[in-house]
Structures are given as C-alpha cells and as structure tokens.
C-alpha cells in the first residue's frame, strides 16, 4: 500500500463498497451475461451436432478464457476506455494528471478500479472450470496453460485500450476503432478459428494476437490440432507476440503523450 497507486485503487474500492446494491446488481448482470453466452454453443451443438468438429463444452472453454481475460483487463481498464478517456482529454482533465508526480498511465489504471469486472472474470473462470471438468482435462499442467491464456488475453485487451487511448490524443473518435478491435477480436475468439477463412485466421492470430491468446492455449489443453500452422506447437510464441503487442501499445502511448496539445479554450 506504500505506493500512491495502491492508495488510489484502495480509495476507489472503498467508494464502490459504499454502494453495495449497485455493485451486486451489476456483478450479477455480468455473471448472467457470461452464462448466457456459454449456453449459446451448447444450444448450437444440440442442433448441429458440433461446431466445426468441436463439442459444446470445448467451445464454452474458448468463451470462458476470453471472458476471464477481458474481465481481468477491465478491472483496471475503465480509466482508459474511449468514453471515459475521451472525456478526460476533451475536458482538459489530462493536464492535471500530467502535472502529478506519478506515471500518467498507472494513475489512470489505478484510479478507476471497477470491481464488477472481478465477477465477470470469475464467471469466465467458472465456465472454464466447468468445461475442463466435463471434458476431464483438468490437471496442474492444463491449469497453468489456461491461467496463462487468461493473463495473455487480459494483456491483449489492455494493450488495445492503451492504443485506443493513445489515438485519443490525435482524434477522439479513432479510439472507438481500437475498442472494436478488442471487442470484435474477443467475439471472434469465442468460436473455434476453423469457422473462419484463412486470411481472417492469420490476421487474428499474428497481427491482432487474440487467436494466439485464446485459441492456441485451448488447443493445447484439448490436445487438438488447428488448421494450417495453428496448433499447440505455437504456444511458446505466445509470450513473445503478446509482449511485442504490449510493447507496441506503450510506444504508441508515449508518442501520443508527446503530441498532446491540451484543449484550447
């Protein structure tokens, strides 16, 4: 708690805890949405027999990993989502943040901690646990791979948010496209990549590494081979590509701050 970031996050958590009704409702809503989403592949499989050769619980595992990662990222990502951060820049509040003796990015991440997303992450983890149990693939080794997948997915979502925030310094609207990248990417990764064309698969594995974060680890856990180059063999590449993506987002952020011109009024 010695750091200002811990104190900031603690203050926000206490303020959220003072309105428990709202927190409970929103958290329950998040859990409900993730549950509904995980039910969709089960319904589809009951009608079609499988989704590109995958069973219901197998597809649910993809959804669970994606939602766990997204939930983890959004716990701290609220301060830089396009709506919030767009206002921060437009209203000139970012000037004040820059004058503080702290890292602007860390300040933004810790000052708007959102507890309801803990429950979204937990619901996602619950779906992963349920599917791993149903498929009898739970072991210490697979648990590590799945946890790494969730952390990688969280890093992916946070990085897109940071890129979006950096774009906000130049154009307030452009950042929405970055969010589309993470939302759309997560929506895409909720189903086996066999479903999509090879171009879409490659873009969303290597350029926008959401397939690498969600799909490849699940392939590893299920001991399956994907189409083309996709398969468990790609797992070692995951930290490299996700690290590079996160690094790129930090570079963009620094560039963005350098071009920040405040609001002229």
């Amino acid at each position: 708690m010695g750091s200002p970031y811990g104190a900031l996050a603690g203050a926000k958590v206490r303020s959220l805890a003072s309105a428990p009704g709202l927190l409970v409702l929103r958290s329950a809503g998040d859990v409900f949405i993730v549950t509904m989403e995980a039910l969709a592949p089960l319904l589809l499989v009951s009608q079609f027999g499988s989704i590109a050769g995958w069973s219901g619980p197998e597809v649910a595992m993809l959804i669970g990993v994606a939602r766990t990662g997204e939930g983890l990222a959004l716990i701290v990502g609220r301060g830089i989502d396009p709506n919030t951060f767009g206002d921060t820049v437009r209203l000139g509040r970012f000037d004040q943040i820059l004058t503080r003796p702290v890292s602007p990015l860390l300040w933004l991440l810790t000052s708007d901690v959102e507890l309801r997303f803990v429950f979204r992450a937990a619901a996602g983890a619950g779906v992963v646990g349920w599917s791993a149990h149903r498929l009898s693939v739970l072991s210490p080794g697979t648990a590590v791979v799945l946890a790494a997948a969730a952390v990688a997915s969280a890093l992916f979502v946070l990085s897109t948010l940071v890129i979006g925030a950096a774009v906000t310094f130049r154009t307030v609207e452009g950042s929405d496209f970055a969010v589309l990248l993470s939302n759309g990417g997560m929506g895409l990764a909720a189903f086996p990549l066999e479903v999509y064309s090879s171009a879409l698969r490659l873009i969303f594995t290597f350029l926008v590494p959401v397939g690498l974060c969600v799909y490849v680890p699940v392939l590893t856990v299920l001991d399956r081979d994907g189409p083309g180059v996709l398969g468990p063999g790609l797992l070692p590449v995951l930290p490299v590509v996700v690290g590079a993506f996160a690094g790129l987002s930090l570079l963009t952020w620094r560039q963005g701050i350098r071009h920040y011109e405040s609001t002229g009024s």
Partner: protein
Amino acid sequence: MYWAGFRRQSRYVASLAVGVAANVFFGIIRSALFVSLYRQKEHVAGLDVTAVLTYVWVLQVVFGVVFVTWIWEFADSVRSGDFAAELVKPGAVLGRLLAVDLGRSSFALATRGLPQLAVAGIVLDLRLPTTPPGVLMFALSLALCAVAASQLRFLFGSLAFWTPDYRGWWTMLFGFLWFTGGFLVPVEFFPGALRWIGEHGPLAGLLAMPVRVATGRGAASALAEQACWVVVAAAACHSVMATAERRMVIHGG
C-alpha cells in the same frame, strides 16, 4: 419532433462510422459461423442456411435500433432532475419522447442498418422480399420494431423514477433481452416452450418477427402479432408514465 430527432442523430458521423464497422465485423463473424454449421446439416429447426444468413443481417440492422448509443439519456435526465423541464412543455410527454426517439432510431435505420442489409443482400444469398407488398410489409415490420424498441427504452429508463441503481438493473435486463430476444442464437433453435416464447412472446417483435416477415414465413401473422405487442407496450408506457409523473412531484424540490 420526429425530424428534430432525425437531424440530431445526423450530427454524429464518426460514431455512426464506428457503429457500421462494428456491425459489419460481427455480421461477417456470425455469417462465417453459420455457413460453417450448415455444412454439417442442411435444415435445422425449419431453417436453411439462406434463412439464417438473412437472420444474421436483419439482426445487424435491428441491433442498431435496439441497443442505441443514447440508451442512458432518458434515465440520466430523470436522475439529474432535468426531466422535470419536459413536464412543463406543452403536449403529451410520452408522445413527444417517443417521437424524438423514433426520429433518432429512424436515422440509424436509414443510414446504418438498411445500406448494410442491401450490401449483404448483394454479396450473399439472402432471402429478402422482392415483391412490392413484401417490401412494404418488411418496412412496416422494421418500423414496428423501432417503435417497440423505443417503448422498451422508455420502460427501462423509467426505472430511474424508482431507483438510482437503474444501470445495475439494465445490466441484468441486457443479458435477458440479448438471449431471449434471439440476438445470440435464433429463437427457432431454443428447446420446447422456450422456443414458443421466443417466437411469440413480447420480445419477438424486436428481431424474430421482422426476420419472419423478411423471409416470408407467415409474414402477415407475424406482422399482426408485432402490432398487438406494440399496443400492449403502449398501454404499459402510459400507465408507467402516469404513475411516474406523480412520483416526479416527490422528487422535485
């Protein structure tokens, strides 16, 4: 009022572009999913791949009309007290609110929804009406969907008269609406009684019935059911408004 709402929405060009990009992206993902599924089976729950692809792209149109960007405005104005000013203006409050809201959603429909559907209809094999009566019925069905969505937003927003936690309730309602409205999986794929509720229940007018009218599966009866639910919802809106106006007096001060 309707045209004021229409023009107001036309100012947000950038948010419109993002909306279209998101719509098209998710439309492509969903299309890919269903094309892949229908390689395994030709007919499922009475629907073939053409019908389901039509569902996907009508969904993209309807999504921009139901889950609109200004979804919080009414509830927020109730919360802040700004809504009290609405009560002073001449004319029926409810009619005015719905007219502005409809104007805004018509803009979304005209610029964001229908062009997408037209392009999808050219690129993909969709089952869209081609005869004048069919086109007219589909237009009517989309209009009824827009009215139903406006009514739904009003009913949800009026929660703010009773509780400051309306955003929390909305998160719950959103999940329910999303799933049972058929925005995740077509209602025809639901099992047993759930399917019947999805096809004929109060939420069917948002998506399931416009899809039926578009693909010509019992179009006339779907349209009639849609109109019935709009009338029911209108009655609900009126009674909520009457109760809420009395509460508003307690709030103001």
